[in-house]
């Protein structure tokens, strides 16, 4: 599929591209188009999916479809890659992303209890989002801060060492912040 100029990819290319423009932001379109004619461009698929997830928080069906169209990679392959790697999420995420580390160092220091408390307090399991859309919960393997085990990350902030009680305090902080901004 490489080494073709954009206009000759398909005879309805203008329409295909316009449809993709509705779904994807300009910088991702530019990234895919700049790479499309390069050698080994298929290798940039994962990078493109990372950009989509960074922008939307997850990989929706229509965004994956647009990536496939624009990069001229079969949708089956895009979906195959997206589902293989744990980092990619196929469901929308809540406003705050909580990842509990279940790596070895955290596990031996009681991460399972921290995780249990989070599930109890939020009323959700790993991979789910609270009904108010405020929190999503996930588990992760080693955030690279084992020295502070057990740890959890809320958005980009790492908290540790944690006890189950700290969990309630931290959650309350985020809830309060939300209420503050809502009023």
């Amino acid at each position, binding site marked *: 599929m490489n080494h073709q100029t954009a206009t000759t990819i398909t005879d309805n290319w203008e329409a295909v591209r316009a449809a993709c423009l509705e779904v994807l932001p300009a910088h991702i379109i530019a990234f895919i188009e700049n790479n499309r004619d390069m050698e*080994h461009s*298929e*290798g*940039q*698929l*994962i*990078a493109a*999916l*990372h950009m989509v997830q960074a922008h939307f928080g997850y990989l929706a069906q229509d965004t994956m479809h647009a990536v496939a169209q624009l990069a001229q*990679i079969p949708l089956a392959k895009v979906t*195959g*890659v997206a589902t*293989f*790697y*744990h*980092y*990619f999420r196929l469901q929308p995420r809540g406003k705050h992303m909580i990842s509990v580390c*279940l*790596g*070895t*160092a955290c*596990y*031996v*220091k009681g991460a399972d*209890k921290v995780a*249990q*408390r989070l599930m*109890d307090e939020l009323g959700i399991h790993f991979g789910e989002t609270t009904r108010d859309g405020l929190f999503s919960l996930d588990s*992760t*393997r*080693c*955030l*690279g*801060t*084992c*020295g*502070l*085990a057990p*740890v959890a990350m809320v958005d*980009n*902030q*790492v*908290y*540790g060492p944690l*006890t*189950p*009680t700290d969990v309630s305090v931290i959650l309350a902080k985020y809830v309060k912040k939300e209420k503050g901004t809502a009023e």
Partner: protein
Amino acid sequence: MSSPVTDFFDSLRDRVHSAMAEHRKAGKITVQIGSATCEHAAGSLDVLDEFTKHIQSSGSDAIEIHKTGCTGRCSKEPIVGIFVPGQAPVKYERVNRELVHEIFTKHIQKGCPLPEHALDGSLDRQNLGAGQGAKSSVSQKFTEMYGDVSFFTAQNRIAMRNSGVLDPESLEEYIALDGFKALATVLGKNDPQWVINEVLKARLRGRGGGGFLTGKKWELATQNEEKTRYIICNGDEGDPGAFMDRGMLESDPFSVLEGMIIGGYAIGAGKGFWYIRAEYPLAIKRIQNAIDLCTKAGLLGKNIMGSGWDFEMEIRLGAGAFVCGEETALIRSIEGERGQPKVRPPFPTTRGLWGKPTCINNVETFANITAIVNHGGEWFASVGTEESGGTKVFALAGKVKHTGLVEVPLGTPLKDVVFGIGGGVQDDKALKAIQTGGPAGGFIPAAMDNLAVDFGPLSKVGSIMGSGGMIVLSEEDCIVDISKFYLSFTQEESCGKCTPCREGTTRMLEILERITSGAAVLEDLDKLERLGKLCQQTALCGLGRAAPNPVLSSLKHFRDEYVEHIQDKTCRAKKCVAMIHFEINAEACIGCTACVRNCPVNCIAGQRKEAHVIDQSRCVKCGQCFDFCRFNAVERK
């Protein structure tokens, strides 16, 4: 002897040196603050903010902030260093906003340091320890800064010589510490085979786990007709309890980068790829910054250092699949595919990325290269053992007093690491085992703690060196539970391509679950062993072949604990919830109600100041009451 390369390097270094000398003349007080993910997590950003405010409001222009990487003294972060010109540096531990104020007003402004907050009590011992432990000139700067801290003097820092010393975002600082001298030497010699020979002499074995001789790997790649070749840095760090590579990528990105350029030159590659896990955003940012700065300075790209040699680099992100640390899976991931391994041979050095000869090396492997070039392969070999040269960085974690990154010569006895540097087991409990190699490794029972850390000795007892995870387990950890933990990791991460691994790990996990829930029979142990051996022998890639290691090694050294779980339905570590229950000892309970307030299912009854009782029928055995009772009244039976 003048050549384009030496001219280039000399002028680069002169510019840096004169800028630095100018800066030193200003004679400012320096506040050094660690800034890596781990330190940020510990609160170093607050500390940075507080110092900035103090400096601003004092109006002084004689104090400056120096951001460095991380030393790896995890349990004492955030660490702050105060450097007053003409005085020995003072380091403080666990600094927070309040302590910043004290340090600022007392130490910086009045010249009175605070020994009670000094890192590991270093101020008290300053006269004794200072300057000791300078293992080699490689780590001279590190020793100048941290030579009075016992956690570090017992180590030998080669790969981590610059971590916590320099600003990981400054090319100038790196050059001032002999940065790119090794590359200038290599390009000046104009002889790739010379590099390979030095690395062979160094007996450097790959630090990613396999332990393959790096010089050998490089040589194999050069013995190929195909001239398009690639070099890849494996920064996927998949072991779920390890963080050495993150440490080096974040704290000393230029050293890893320079080592990789040299590797690229040695094998005749035109392009290098970094494969870094997406979970390490700061490492990715710092490597990208290093690539950009080096490209601008003529150290990467076309005609590097005027040598006529071209080499470029690109970062590719992992996406959370452990199997992608395996070489063939990593290559497929860079190619944009699902990261499923392929049958080897052909090895990547023959047919790798896009079918071209490819060398994949670990972050730490590259971090050692410049030291080998600058100080000679023989010197490097002399640091380690007969079988392997140099040091190894371990991520020491688990039930150990001092957690952190520890770099010791290969051949060092395990107990020197765990007790000497790590300070022994947390809360002075008894040591049960040391786990090395993560999910691909095994357990070394406490009685064998004299074992030398080296590839051979570790695999002889059924563990592996691995990439550097070292987890200390105490009598409070259940060996069956931890084995199950590792297996559930590999089972989840199995890519599913081959049956022995996909089915084998699942069936083994089921057996372990039966054991910990009290539903197993003794024959299950034989089944477990048979399945494990089968998986070791027949799985396609390293993930499946190593997956049974934790189980098999624990069966070898701790079989009685398995038998206890099965026959007596007891867990001596009191971890396996199916085998324990919680009771309140009426004599010890003072009725403080802490347990009541923390029980998630409200199954504890009792009046204030009177003995409490647990309703066993409703208790979910979460252990909260046990953790919260400050009077040891809750008992696990």
